[in-house]
């Protein structure tokens, strides 16, 4: 439900420091994290930010490593914008938005080396653990990216490696007590700018009115491990500073909930 003058009305309201749902400009909706939501998965979590909901599942399989990294396990992040979450999502091959989301979250996890893939090696050149993280959108009420990012990390933390039997094969029916070798926890926070106002955790409507957005993944309040700018409006460097600052501040708050 958006057009130019509806957007201007929203923009004016934000200028006065008011959001349509009564939140402060930098306020996140309530965050709920539930783990073990899919028992066959080696790790799983559902995260809700307000009414936005994403389910993450981690599958860990024993496989042959890639030739060029014989001593490393593998990691892959996949996302699906399921049509259940939004009447505008279509079934079929992945949309560019779902690809972008998967790749941004992947970079956050991979570039921060949050999982030490060398520790996923079982027998060099022969057997490694292959980690597949799948993100499924359940309901889109805005800010799928931050919700999916958090679900991915929660699912990774929840994951347990499969038991290995006497012949050295994985026994997927039983989970061991060992989790994944997690070194760091990347948290993504996306900040949007509408008109001249910057906000955190946009609602669906605010996303539709958004001029530009900046996703910042961090592993601590000082270290950024991934970034992605979206939207068509160009940002001044002062705006970028302000948005990064807010993103890092919010990430620290969220880290406490994890």
């Amino acid at each position, binding site marked *: *439900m958006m057009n130019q*003058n509806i957007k*201007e*009305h929203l923009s004016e309201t934000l200028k006065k420091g008011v959001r*349509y749902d*009564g939140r402060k400009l930098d306020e996140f909706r309530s965050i709920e994290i539930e783990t073990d939501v899919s028992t066959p998965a080696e790790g799983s979590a559902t995260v809700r930010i307000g009414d936005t909901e994403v389910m993450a599942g981690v599958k860990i399989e024993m496989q042959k490593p890639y030739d060029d990294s014989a001593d490393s396990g593998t990691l892959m992040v996949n996302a699906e914008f399921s049509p259940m979450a939004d009447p505008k999502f279509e079934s079929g091959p992945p949309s560019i938005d779902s690809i972008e989301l998967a790749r941004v979250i992947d970079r956050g996890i991979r570039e921060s080396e949050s999982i030490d893939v060398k520790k996923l090696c079982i027998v060099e050149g022969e057997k490694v653990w292959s980690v597949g993280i799948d993100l499924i959108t359940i309901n889109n009420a805005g800010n799928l990216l931050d919700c999916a990012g958090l679900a991915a990390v929660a699912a990774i933390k929840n994951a347990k490696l499969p038991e290995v039997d006497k012949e050295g094969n994985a026994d997927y029916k039983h989970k061991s007590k060992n989790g994944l070798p997690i070194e760091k926890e990347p948290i993504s926070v996306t900040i949007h700018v509408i008109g001249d106002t910057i906000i955190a955790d946009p609602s669906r409507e605010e996303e539709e009115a958004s001029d530009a957005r900046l996703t910042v993944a961090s592993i601590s309040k000082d270290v950024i491990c991934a970034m992605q700018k979206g939207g068509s409006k160009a940002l001044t460097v002062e705006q970028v500073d302000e948005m990064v600052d807010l993103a890092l501040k919010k990430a620290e708050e969220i880290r406490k909930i994890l």
Partner: protein
Amino acid sequence: MESKLLIKERDVVIPGEELASGMDFLPSEGTYRLENSIYSKVMGLVKVDGKVLKVRALRGGYLPKRNDTVIGKVTDIMSAGWFIDIFSPYNSLLPLKEGSSDFIQRGADLTRYYDIEDFVVVKILSVNAQKQVDVTIKGPGLRKLKGGRLIKINSQKVPRVIGKQGSMINLIKENTGTQVTVGQNGIVWIKGEDPLMENLAEKTIRKIEAEAHIPGLTDRIGEWLKDQVGGKK
């Protein structure tokens, strides 16, 4: 066989639920007869009108009806007129002659009247068997919308949001000082000078939507509104 009513007024029933047995009762909206019984065919509230049994759906998409006032969005412009998305499986046409009381020349720039992406308040003139809809914008209250915010509510709840002779909607307008236009298709437009009051109007409408099936709604909303406004002043 003795006729027996198995439910009562305002009961919530589901599709396939048996409402009455025997031949004395008559099926109507939302119900059907199978052999000796009457069943519901929708999830909704039971209405008993003497011997006539109806079930009114609690939820469901909007199906266009003649004389309904709805809020739509202009999606395309052709020489015949403007195509309006009325947030229903069926879209509508605002024919040239219904677009204005001015005489519109052939070949005139129709965007001068309504442009693509404009939101408009229109009235349904006709719906044919294939559900093709014609609308008009000539009439009291019908117009192009400027600014404000739009929300989507359950179209089945619209009568409760409007209230008997507009009692509920007026309650909201008076207490919040906002303009509110409710489309029968569940699209609601709100505009006020004070964004906090706009927020309150929106919140109130959502509250009505959630509590519509509970009796005593008007009084409850009246009390609640006075409370909320009192708290803010």
